[in-house]
C-alpha cells in the first residue's frame, strides 16, 4: 500500500507541469456524504442545537445549507469534519463511517474554508497552501509544484503571490488563497462555512463565478453554508433550507424551491421575486432562439432594400463584416440617411450569449427599443434573436414544469414520510411487546 502511494506521489508533479486541464482529470473527485440522525445537544440546554438531521449528498454535488442565523447550519457543517463532535448519529463519507475515526486524520481529507479566509498571518501564501500537503507527508518537490498549481487554479499568478503575506492581499485574494489551501491536498470533500460573507458584493460575485468554474473542473462534493438565499440559488445543485434545530424545511433543487416552496417558512425565506430569481437559473440556450432577417454591411443596397420589403417585419438586423450584430435598420432609415449605411439605423447596444441567463436576456429585451435581443456565438457572431414573446412563453412553460415536478417530488416525500412513521410506530410497538 505505501508503495502505491509513493508512485502516485511521483506522478503528480509531472501532471502539474502538464497543465491544469490535465490534473483536473487526475484529481480526486467527490465522495458521497451521508448524515444519519445527526444530533448535537449542548450540555445544559434542553433542546438540541441540531436535531436528528438525515441527508444524503451525492458525489460531486454542491449542496448549500441556507437558513436564518442560529438555525444550526454551521453546527451541522462543522459536525461533518467533527470540529464539533456530534452527540448522536452517524456520518459517512464515501461510504466509510467517519464518526469514530481520528478527527485530525479525518480533517486532512476534508477541505475546510471559512469566512474571512482563516489564513495564518505569520505564514506566506505558499506556506499556508502547503500546510496540509506537508502534514500528510508529501515530498517537498510535489508540494511546491502543487502550491503553484493551486494558485493557478484560483486565478492568482504564482510568481507574484507565493511569497506574499496574507495582509498584503485584498479580501478577495485572501479568500481565493483560502480555497486553494482547502483544496491543496486534493480532498474529495470541501466544506465552506460562509466563505464569501466578509467580502464586498462585487468581489463576492466574482468569487461565486470562480467557484462555479472550479467545481466544473474538479467535481468535488461541496457543502456550502450561507444565509444569503440568492447565493444559494446561484451556487447550489441542491439547496437545503434549514429552520431552527437544523430541521430541514426543504431539500431540493433551486428550481423546485423557487417555484414550489414546501411551506410558509421556505417561501418567506425565498422572499419576493421568486419568478425573477428563477430566470437566473435558466440559460438562453434553454429557450427558443428565433431566426431573424439579416443583412451584412457588404451586401449591395438593392438587396438590403429588397430584404426590408420582403421580410414582413418593421426592421432587419445589419451585421458587420465578421457577422456580428451591428445595427437595427428600419424601413425609413436608409431613405433618411440618403442611402449611407454608416449613418442609418440604431446601434445594437446589447447582445447575449447562449450561456447567458434569461435574466440577462430579459434585461436586454426591456432596454432595447426593438424589444428583442440578438444572440451571439463564441466569437460574437449572430446566431438568432430572443424576443419578449418567446421569453414570456418560455418562462411560463418553465414555471409550470417546475411546479409539476416539485409537486410530484413532494408527493413522493410525503409517502416516504408516512411509510417511515408507520415503520417507527411498529418498531416502538415491537419494543414494548418485548419489554
Amino acid at each position, binding site marked *: 500500500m505505501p508503495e502505491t502511494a509513493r508512485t502516485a506521489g511521483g506522478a503528480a508533479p509531472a501532471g502539474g507541469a502538464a497543465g491544469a486541464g490535465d490534473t483536473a482529470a487526475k484529481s480526486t473527485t467527490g465522495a458521497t456524504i451521508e448524515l444519519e440522525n445527526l444530533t448535537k445537544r449542548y450540555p445544559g440546554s434542553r433542546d438540541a442545537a441540531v436535531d436528528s438531521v438525515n441527508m444524503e449528498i451525492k458525489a460531486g454535488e454542491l449542496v448549500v445549507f441556507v437558513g436564518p442565523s442560529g438555525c444550526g447550519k454551521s453546527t451541522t457543517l462543522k459536525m461533518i*469534519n467533527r*470540529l464539533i463532535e456530534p452527540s448522536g448519529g452517524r456520518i459517512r463519507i464515501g461510504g466509510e463511517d467517519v464518526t469514530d475515526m481520528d478527527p485530525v486524520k479525518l*480533517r486532512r481529507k476534508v477541505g475546510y474554508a471559512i469566512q474571512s479566509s482563516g489564513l*495564518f*498571518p*505569520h505564514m506566506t501564501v505558499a506556506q499556508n497552501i502547503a500546510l496540509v500537503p506537508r*502534514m500528510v507527508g508529501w515530498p517537498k518537490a510535489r508540494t511546491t509544484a502543487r502550491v503553484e498549481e493551486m494558485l493557478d487554479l484560483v486565478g492568482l499568478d504564482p510568481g507574484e503571490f507565493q511569497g506574499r*503575506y496574507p495582509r498584503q492581499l485584498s479580501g478577495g485574494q485572501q479568500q481565493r488563497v483560502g480555497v486553494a489551501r482547502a483544496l491543496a491536498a486534493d480532498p474529495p470533500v470541501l466544506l465552506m462555512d460562509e466563505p464569501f460573507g466578509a467580502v464586498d458584493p462585487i468581489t463576492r460575485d466574482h468569487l461565486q463565478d470562480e467557484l462555479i468554474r472550479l467545481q466544473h473542473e474538479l467535481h468535488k462534493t461541496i457543502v456550502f453554508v450561507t444565509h444569503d438565499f440568492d447565493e444559494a440559488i446561484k451556487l447550489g445543485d441542491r439547496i437545503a433550507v434549514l429552520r431552527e434545530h437544523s430541521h430541514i424545511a426543504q431539500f431540493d433543487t433551486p428550481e423546485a424551491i423557487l417555484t414550489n416552496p414546501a411551506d410558509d417558512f421556505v417561501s418567506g425565506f425565498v422572499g419576493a421575486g421568486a419568478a425573477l430569481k428563477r430566470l437566473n437559473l435558466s440559460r438562453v440556450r434553454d429557450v427558443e432562439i428565433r431566426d431573424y432577417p439579416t443583412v451584412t454591411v457588404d451586401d449591395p443596397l438593392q438587396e438590403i432594400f429588397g430584404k426590408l420589403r420582403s421580410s414582413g417585419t418593421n426592421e432587419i438586423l445589419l451585421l458587420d463584416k465578421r457577422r456580428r450584430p451591428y445595427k437595427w435598420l428600419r424601413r425609413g432609415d436608409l431613405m433618411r440617411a440618403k442611402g449611407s449605411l454608416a449613418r442609418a439605423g440604431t446601434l445594437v447596444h446589447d447582445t447575449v450569449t447562449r450561456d447567458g441567463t434569461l435574466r440577462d436576456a430579459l434585461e436586454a429585451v426591456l432596454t432595447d427599443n426593438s424589444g428583442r435581443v440578438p444572440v451571439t456565438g463564441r466569437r460574437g457572431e449572430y446566431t438568432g434573436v430572443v424576443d419578449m414573446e418567446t421569453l414570456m412563453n418560455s418562462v411560463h412553460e418553465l414555471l409550470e414544469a417546475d411546479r409539476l415536478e416539485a409537486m410530484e417530488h413532494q408527493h413522493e416525500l410525503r409517502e416516504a414520510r408516512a411509510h417511515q412513521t408507520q415503520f417507527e410506530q411498529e418498531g416502538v410497538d415491537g419494543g414494548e411487546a418485548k419489554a
Partner: protein
Amino acid sequence: MNFWQYLSSRHEQLLTDAYQHASAVFQCMVVATVIGVLIGVVTYRSDWAGNLATTTTSAILTIPSLAMIGLLIPIVGLGVPPTVIALTLYGLLPIVRNSIVGLRGVDPSLVDAARGIGMSRAARLLRVELPLAWPPILTGIRIATQMLMGIAAIAAYASGPGLGNEIFRGISSLGSKNALNQVLAGTVGIIILALLFDAGYVLLGRLTIPRGIRA
C-alpha cells in the same frame, strides 16, 4: 581620584562584575521564559487557572526583593542559589501574564481554521498559536529583563555575583573617598547592560517575528 581614574584603575574588577551580572540575568531569564511560557500554555485556556497564575506571580512581585533574598538565605544558603531563585521568580510575572494575554488574543477563527485543516493539538500550539503570541511574549521578556537588571543588584546582599557588589561596597563605606565612585560605577554599569540587552531584544524581534505580523 575622580570617576574616570577610578574606572581605569578598577576596570578589570568592574568588567568581571558586569559580566557576572549579565550572565546571571541572562540565565535566569532563560529559565523564567521557559517556565513562564509553560505556565502560560498550560493555563491560558481556562479562566480560573490563567487568573490564578497571574495573581500568584504578581503576588511574588510584591515581596520586596531584599526580603525575598533574606528569606531564601536560611533555606538555600548564600551566594548563587538565592540569587538565581529570586531572579527567576521575579522574572515570571511579565512573561506569564503576556503569554496568557498573547495566547488568548489569537483570533479564534484562526484556531478554528487550524483545527479544520487537520492540525493536531501540538501542531496548533507550535505552528499557529505560539508564533502569533510571540510578539507580546517577547515584550514580556523585555520588561522582565529590565526589572531583573535592577533586582540583580540586591543579590550582592546574599554574596551573589554582579555589579551589586560594587554598590553595596560603596554604601557600606559611605564617607570614604571612593564610596560615591563605587555606587556610581555599579549603577551606570547596570544601566548600560540594560540598554545593551534591550538592543539585543530589538534585534531578536527583527529576526524572530515573521514579516506578516510585524507591526
